[in-house]
């Protein structure tokens, strides 16, 4: 109970402050729908913290259109059922926009409710299906899986100039989708795709497929699945003496990949969105420092600050249009080009897709550290 007292006192102060702040019409409410508890709690809390920090900065600088911003958070636990409840709650609160959620599933479950109530929403989910409804209220602040595939294809064919490319995936819908997009993008770039195959995730023994690949003498093997298989594929590839470069999709970017591959990890290329530490922009450095100062820990991952970028774009939209009408803001955002975000320039397509996201290619060094090798 003793521990509760400061919290109670604090909330009493906050309540008093809110009462004195005046009527509700003077504030603009921003909703956060994120998995604040549960499996993805660290990501959800980071999103909530990031949004609160941004709002604090805006309020300190005089607010938005002369009004103060207020954050209303709802915990969806990363679950679709909870997401639907959150959506109704945030609609009733009368928020202007909702930031989140973290998972594609929870985002999709709430999307239609926000659309029907003309509330803007921005999320980091990467599932291609999020923008298929073409809701004018929805803005993806991360990248679509197919964007990663196009980047990878261009990098393999144009920059590295590989002549014989093999594409592998497991049977999961995510990996197959990424591999299929990569394969067609490689062909579109004029690359020579010599083989596209699938491995059964978790079977551990990939030598049969790799031996078959060996006879084709590839110079690049791209794997779109997860690190638990990717690390083993890399190890067995080197073991069999296949002298091809190994390029892993974003799900291979995990310390366990290096452990599984052992010494073979060196020289592996991994394609992923920049991790926060690698973001080159000044806005990124400032924001990450402010976050560290306020919360005493770094941002959990790049996904949290992608969502902050979504919020920053919406705030920018309100400032530019001098309007709180969501349709007006949305129309403006659909034409937004190269707004300087924390995670790089923010541009939206008419279906709410963020375009021109930047990817990094990391080369794994002998000590398992990363070196960025694209520019």
């Amino acid at each position: 109970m003793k521990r509760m007292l400061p919290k109670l006192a604090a909330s009493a102060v906050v309540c008093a402050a809110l009462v004195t702040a005046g009527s509700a019409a003077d504030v603009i409410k921003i909703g956060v729908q994120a998995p604040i508890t549960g499996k993805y709690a660290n990501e959800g809390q980071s999103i909530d913290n990031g949004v609160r920090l941004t709002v604090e900065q805006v309020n300190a600088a005089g607010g938005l259109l002369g009004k103060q911003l207020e954050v209303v958070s709802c915990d969806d636990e990363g679950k679709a059922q909870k997401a639907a409840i959150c959506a109704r709650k945030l609609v009733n609160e009368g928020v202007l926009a909702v930031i989140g959620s973290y998972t594609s599933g929870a985002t999709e479950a709430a999307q239609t409710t926000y659309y029907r109530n003309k509330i803007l929403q921005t999320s980091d989910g990467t599932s291609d299906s999020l923008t298929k409804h073409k809701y004018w209220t929805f803005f993806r602040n991360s990248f679509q899986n197919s964007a990663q595939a196009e980047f990878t294809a261009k990098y393999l064919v144009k920059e590295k100039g590989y002549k014989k490319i093999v594409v592998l995936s497991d049977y999961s819908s995510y990996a197959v989708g990424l591999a299929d997009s990569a394969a067609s993008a490689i062909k579109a770039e004029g690359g020579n795709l010599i083989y596209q195959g699938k491995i059964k995730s978790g079977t551990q023994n990939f030598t049969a497929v790799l031996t078959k690949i060996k006879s084709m003498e590839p110079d690049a093997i791209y794997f779109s699945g997860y690190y638990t298989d990717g690390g083993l594929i890399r190890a067995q590839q080197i073991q069999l003496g296949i002298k091809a470069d190994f390029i892993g999709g974003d799900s291979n970017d995990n310390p366990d990949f290096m452990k599984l591959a052992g010494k073979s990890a060196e020289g592996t290329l991994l394609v992923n969105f920049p991790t926060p530490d690698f973001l080159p922009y000044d806005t990124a450095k400032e924001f990450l420092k402010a976050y560290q100062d306020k919360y005493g820990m770094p941002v959990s991952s790049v996904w949290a600050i992608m969502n902050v970028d979504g919020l920053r774009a919406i705030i920018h939209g309100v400032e530019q249009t001098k309007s709180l009408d969501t349709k007006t803001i949305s129309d403006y955002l659909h034409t937004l080009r190269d707004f300087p975000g924390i995670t790089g320039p923010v541009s939206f397509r008419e279906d709410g897709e963020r375009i021109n996201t930047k990817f990094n290619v990391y080369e794994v060094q002998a000590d398992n550290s990363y070196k960025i090798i694209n520019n």
Partner: protein
Amino acid sequence: MDIFLQQLVNGLTIGSLYALVALGYTMVYGVMKLINFAHGDLVALSAFAGLTIYTNIFSDSGTSIVAVITVFMFTAAIIAVVGVLLERLAYRPLRTAPRLSAVVSALGAGLVIQNAIMLIWGPNMKIFPSNLFPSTIYEINGVVITFTQLMILLFSSVLMIALYLFINKTKMGTAIRAVAIDQDAAKLMGINVNKIIMIIFIIGSGLGAVAGLFIGIYYRGITFDMGWMYGLSAFVAAIIGGIGNIPGAMFGGLMLGLFNALISGYISSAWAETFTFMLLIVVLIFRPTGILGEKVAEKV
């Protein structure tokens, strides 16, 4: 041609692991007419126990023969004890019960072991260090074989030959065969049936432990539920070879490994399991007692 030979090497390696595990199934079945479904989970347990022993005692010693021998001896001993306990707690009380009860008990024991692994070591993949064996690679006419693969092939053949000689040439082996034919008659001849069954579990679990360690060293990533996958494959191998028959289990394991590698290599890895079970059905239709099942009259 070297592609085909490479697939043969790959297939034989995984096949000898299947064979080692299959021996555990077949020996227990031969003596007790019980399918020990917990056997696969013992294999998984051995990989986890071996990893813990290695990381706690030898993590700094790198590639050392002492470390490897100690890990193998200790792990095999631990798993043999677990195997004996398993028999004592889960199977002996049901020895006179209908056979179905014992099978259900075996499935339950398997679940207990699997979940115990998850509770002790956690649900995430654990990873074996890469320096347990030297990472030497030999290449003969374009066919690649690693030091680990050589060790697997060598070690499992030695163990299988030793087991074959033990069963067929020693007094103890004769006693095991006698119990397999008729427990009551063996008892009348002065054979201690409980002791024989205990020995069967020690040998079977020990061989499974060796297989589990090799799986960990060869593939590196181990998960708490991997016992089911290896157990099922080895069980199929034991049936194809003729369950209860020791050379049958060896033959079945090697054959299954080769079959899998060739299907994955020349058709698709997605079809490997489908074809494995089709092979099982075909064998059961045309030779219901397994490929080597009929030649040997007594089942051990």
